[in-house]
Structure formats: structure tokens, C-alpha cells
């Protein structure tokens, strides 16, 4: 049996163990600052609040439980050969420590539920619709010049409209696409609700913008959409987040938030360019 000869390494083990866990706790706390970015949309800021709440709960649980564990390791290491009291359990204690996690779960769930409802606000009027198509292995972003997401005059197969794209007429439509080397940039206006409609014709992709703190899968046969309102001007990074085959890692894009004036200028330039291109043939 292990005996007093084990004492010294045992103490060292406990010290090492404690130092390790304390270091982890410190890293964990420090990472709150460098961890999740705050997000640039209304929705992201809501979700970031929930993240911080979860982090705080997690940190408390971590410190209490690991603290109790370290306390046990230090306080109750073997000191004599006498048998400790053989306690088999206690219903009251079990009841209490079943109750505590239940309360935590209900708190976390309630807050998540509220945030979820805010993030997935249904039927919000939008100022712009961006049609996103994911394909192996890039993205295409399609805008409508004269039909900024209002959905009027949608093409109708029954009426015999030949054009079946997202805009009212083919002339309205222009697209941005890129390559792995030359990433496409999707542009949206500041302070306005923008709807992203996601479509895939091959495999599942996932439209992920880190600073939206959000991703939504791009699934063949299913039309997913979400709406965000960006609150910060700048260029942000986006990437496919669902393994989609060979060059999945290269499905990157940029997302640029411009003020309304800059956005209109960009839109005019793009529309003119696409009309010029259309006239060429």
C-alpha cells in the first residue's frame, strides 16, 4: 500500500495541480477581454450580452467547484491509517445540489430565450436584400438596383416571366463574386436593417461573419434568411463555416459597412458597370 513515502510527491502533486488550475482560471478570466469580440450589429450586441452572462456563470461555477476540489486535495490527503467515517450520502445534500443546477439552467434558458426572440425578429421591414449563393468554393452576392428588398413585382413563373432571379427584372440585377485569391466583398449600408437570403445549389455551406457573432447554414433545397442592422462602418471578415469539400478553407469573403451616401455611390457605380457590361454583347 502507499505509505508515508508517498507524502512528498503527493504534496508536490497537489501544489502543481493547484497552480495549474489557478493559471487556467486566470487565463480564462483574461480571455474574457480578448475572447469574443463585441459584434457590430444590434443583434450581435444582444448576443454578446448573453455570452458575457454565460461566461460569468461559468466562471463562478469553475472557481467554486475547482476550489472545492483543490481544498479536498489539500485538506484531506492521507494523514493516518485510521479509516475515515464511511458516509454513504445524504438525501438533503443531493436535493440541494440537484436544485442549484436547475436554477442555473432556468436562468440561462430564460435569458437565451429572450435574446433568441430579439435576434430572430420576424417580419421586420428591410431596406436592402442581399441574395447570397454559396457554391463550391466561393460566394456570389446578388443585389437588385431598383428593388431594394421591397419584394414588389417579383417574377412570376405562372405569368410566364422568363426571368426567375431575385429582382423584378433581369436588368435590375447585378452580382459580385470572387476567387480564393481575390475575395469578394459584400457591401451593406450602416444603421439599416439588411436581409440576407441564403441559397445553395450543391452542398451545405454556412454563412459566417465573425463580427455579426452569427452564422446561418446555406442549405440546398432550403431558403434560409436573417436580418441584421450594422452599427459600425468598416471592413470585416467572413468565411464558410460548414465543411463543404476540398477548398472549404478558401471560401472567404469580406463584408463592408458603408454610410448610406457611400453605399448609394457604390450602388450607382456597380449598376452602371453592370448595364455597360449588359450592352456589350
Amino acid at each position: 500500500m502507499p505509505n508515508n513515502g508517498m507524502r512528498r510527491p503527493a504534496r508536490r502533486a497537489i501544489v502543481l495541480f493547484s497552480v495549474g488550475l489557478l493559471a487556467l482560471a486566470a487565463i480564462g478570466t483574461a480571455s474574457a477581454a480578448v475572447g469574443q469580440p463585441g459584434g457590430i450589429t444590434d443583434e450581435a450586441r444582444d448576443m454578446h450580452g448573453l455570452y458575457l452572462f454565460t461566461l460569468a456563470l461559468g466562471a463562478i461555477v469553475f472557481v467554486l467547484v475547482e476550489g472545492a476540489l483543490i481544498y479536498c486535495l489539500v485538506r484531506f490527503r492521507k494523514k493516518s491509517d485510521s479509516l475515515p467515517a464511511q458516509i454513504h450520502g445524504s438525501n438533503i445534500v443531493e436535493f440541494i445540489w440537484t436544485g442549484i443546477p436547475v436554477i442555473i439552467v432556468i436562468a440561462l434558458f430564460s435569458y437565451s430565450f429572450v435574446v433568441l426572440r430579439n435576434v430572430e425578429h420576424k417580419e421586420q421591414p428591410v431596406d436592402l436584400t442581399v441574395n447570397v449563393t454559396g457554391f463550391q468554393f466561393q460566394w456570389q452576392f446578388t443585389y437588385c438596383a431598383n428593388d431594394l428588398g421591397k419584394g414588389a413585382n417579383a417574377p412570376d413563373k405562372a405569368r410566364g416571366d422568363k426571368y426567375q432571379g431575385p429582382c423584378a427584372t433581369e436588368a435590375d440585377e447585378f452580382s459580385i463574386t470572387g476567387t480564393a485569391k481575390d475575395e469578394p466583398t459584400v457591401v451593406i449600408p450602416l444603421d439599416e436593417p439588411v436581409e440576407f437570403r441564403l441559397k445553395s445549389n450543391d452542398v451545405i455551406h454556412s454563412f459566417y461573419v465573425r463580427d455579426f457573432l452569427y452564422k446561418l447554414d446555406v442549405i440546398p433545397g432550403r431558403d434560409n434568411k436573417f436580418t441584421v442592422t450594422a452599427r459600425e462602418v468598416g471592413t470585416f471578415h467572413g468565411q464558410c463555416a460548414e465543411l463543404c469539400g476540398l477548398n472549404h478553407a478558401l471560401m472567404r469573403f469580406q463584408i463592408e459597412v458603408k454610410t448610406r451616401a457611400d453605399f448609394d455611390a457604390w450602388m450607382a457605380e456597380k449598376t452602371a458597370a453592370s448595364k455597360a457590361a449588359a450592352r456589350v454583347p
Partner: protein
Amino acid sequence: MASIAIPKQGGYSRPLILEWITTVDHKKLGILYLYTSMFFFAVGGVLALLVRTQLAVADNHFLDNHAYNQIFTMHASAMLFLFIIPIWAGFGNYLVPLQIGALDMAFPRINALSYWLFPPAGIIMFSGFLVKDGAAQAGWTAYSPLAKTLGTGMDLWIIAVAMLGVSSTIGAANFLVTMFRMRAPGMTMFRMPIFCWTMLVTSVLSLLATPVLASALTMLFIDRNFGGNFFDPNGGGNAVLWQNVFWFYSHPAVYIMILPGMGIISEILPVFSRKPLFGYKAFIFATMGIGGLGFSVWAHHMFTTGAVLKPWFGFMTGLIGVPTGVKMFNWLGTLWRGQLTFEPPMLFALGFVSMFLIGGINGAFAAAVPVDFAIHDTYFVVAHIHYVLFGGSVFAVFGGLYYWFPKIWGRRLNDRLGQIQFWLMFIGFNLTFFPMHLLGLDGMPRRIATYNDFNNWQLLNMISTSGAFLIGLSMFPFAAAVIMAFMKPKDQPNDPWEANTLEWATTSPPPVHNFDEIPEIHSERPLFDLRHGTHSNH
């Protein structure tokens, strides 16, 4: 069954190799399971080091995208299907009959079949590296329709996983019948060792969930080879359907991968605390609770599809934290006012408790649905699964190996090497996986073959890679301990740890028929009662 004829000692002399190939002895099959799964652990580990080498620096060209996708897919497939799940079958095979005082498993030949499906499945899965277009490369989750578009390696993967599914299912039935029908006199259900209970719940999960996986795999195979369109919307199928059926198996499978580990540390902690497990029955009900709830949370892997009822699955996922929390507190209650010593089995068990806690806490982020929108499919999730399955399961595997090595092989692994291994592994583990939380929060998606360094991801990736090599290094003291042990003669007494359960009542290693004599059983700790002449007040 009790009616199995026991061969006379030395009555039949057969070549050793034939003896092992034809054996139906649960102990030999258990050892075969342990060897084979540890082999695949080593293979999966090498693949992991390749993955980490590729990701060590930004824009690396060590592996190309094609090789990378195969390697990370096969790393996960090997570790989950060929290591963790079967190694529990190994421990279970060896220990369950001994712990309940039985002669063997209920169906020894079916038991042999369970095992012998396993090595060929591994060979078939890895033979993908030899065919055109290489091994499976759709991740261990094989999402469709991507999986439909890939080469023959995918078919080999499907066949292998299906074979392993058959192996688990019949193995589960075998464990259940053994535990229900073959307990020694006095061994009531509520006196069964906690490891047996976790194997019991695990077996129920396998029995209910694995057939769903079998049907999913069959549909995928038909989609790929016989013009089916179950999961391909271009032919009228539904891409999300695969995820539903796959996770209906694979979420319970996560509990299949962790519950026996919880059982193992619940055997170790009481022995090295010199106290009974705190709340034995509460622990059993918590295990059942986890198993039951495990069937109602599969879609928490699918929040970002937008195709599932998010509040329901978020809430049920949170609820799993309750029985898990109860277990955590029961382990602490076991240590409380004990007389703790820190031999290697105890170190690994404590490693489990401290690391699995983190695996629980970071799971809460994914259960809070809107937070999951950000972290889903990022390295945060990779950190989470490894805190559960490495910080949890793998630590339990090594704890179990150090603990039962004297029983299985009659020799004790060197304590000092065990301590060295533990500290290297513990530090390496945290270096590898803790930074992944930060990478995930910073937006690094999982399963990408390369990244550019615009976000300064390289430093954290480099730390992670060094940690991975430290884990690799930690396997050398273990290998040394095993080799040293086998160079010495068998010298272990029946009960070297002063343990509680029935397997320690027989010799180390046990005879073919397991027990010459089974002690009276009055509690869940028959050996404690024997040593102290008490009847438990339980």
C-alpha cells in the same frame, strides 16, 4: 452461460495464436479489445499530430487540402469509432462478469463476434487511403449531400461504421443479458458496482440509438451507389434529414463515449479516498437521467440550420447539466473528509473531474442558443468536445489502465512513470485545447485546412500544436511503464489497492473460471465488508 464447459487446465494444448483467435473467454476478448483500441488510439494520435503540424503556422503547405480533409476525418473516426467506443467494450468485457461474480458473458460466442467485427472494420476504414480519391473526407459527421459527392473512401467508411454498429449492438445486448441474468447470489441490481451501471445505461443507449445510425448509413449508401435521393434535394430529398438521423444516434453516442469513463473514475475515487462513493443511488439515477435526456437533445448540433425548434433543444441541453452536476458533486462528496492518496489511477481520475468540469461549462455556451450561433462550427466546439472526450474519457482510460493493470496482467505499472505521464498529459492537454476556446471566439472555423494570419491566429495555433506534441511525448513514459511491467514476473496480490468490488476477490490475473470462491455479498462493496467484517449500513 453457467452451462459453458470449462476446459481442463492444460487439457488441450493449442498454439498460442490459435488460442487467442478462437477464444470465447471474456477476459481474453477484453484484452484483445484493449490492445486493438490502444493501437487505433496511437494511429489516431499520429493523425492528430499531422493536423496540428499543418495548423501550426498560417498559410502552411505541409499538407494539401485533399490530404488534410482525409486526415482530420480519419483522426476523428479512429478516435471515436475505433478507440473510445471499443475500449469501453474492452474494459466492460473484462470487468463486468468479474464485478458481478459471473463465469463469463451471457453469450460468449456472440461476444467473440462483437470483437472480431472490430479489427476488420478498422482495416476497411483505413483502406480508404489506398483507393482513388483517398479516404473519407467529409468529417466524422459525413454531412450530406457532400458525402454523396466524394470518392470510394466514403463507401469504405460507411461499411466500416456499419460493421462497428453491429458490433456495438450485439455487444450491448450481451452486456444487458449478462447483468440482468448472471449476477452472483446476493448481487442485487442496487449492489452492482457503479462501473457496471454505467455499462448498463451505455448498453441501453447503444441498443436504442445504433439501429438509427444503421438506417442512416444504409440510406447514405443507397444515395451514393443505387441512385437514391434521401438526402439530396436536387433529387427530391432533404439535406437536413441526414443531420437529424445522424445526430439522433451521435448525440447519445457522446454519452456512450463518456458514461463508462464516469463509471471508471467512480470506482477509483472511493478506493483512493477510503470512503464509499457518495450517493451511490443518486449517481445511478443521474446516469439514467443523462441517458434518457440524451435522446432529446440531438438537434443542438443543428441550431444554425434554422430547421429545428431551438428553444426546446436549448432547454433540454441545459437540463443535461443537472444530472451531470449531481455527479460532479457526488465525486467531491466522495473526496470530502477522505484519506486521499495520489497513485496514478487517482491522479487520472482527478484529472477527469477537473477537466470534465470545463467540458461541462463550455458546453453551456453551446446550449445558450444565440451564443451557439457564434461558436458553432468554430474551434470553440473543438475545445468543448476534447475537454469532454479527452479531458474526460481519455483520462479515464488511463486511470482505468493503471488501476486494473495489476488485475489483468498481474503486474503493477511503475508509479513514478505514471506520475510523469499524468503531468505531461495534463499540461499538454490544456496547452493544446484551452487556446482553441479563444480561437473559436475569435472566429476560426473548425475543419479548415489552412488560415491566413489577418486575425493573429498563428500564436494560439502554435501553442496548441506544441501542447499536442507534449501529449505525444506523454505516451512514452506510459509505454516504458508497460514494457517494464512485462519484463517482471507476475507479482500482484488479489487486491493491491484495498479496493471494494468483486474482481479483487480473485487472483491477479483471474483463473479461466474467474472465481474459486465468491464471497458473500451484502452491499455494493463486498471486499470492503470482507476486510472490515462489517455489513454496509446501506
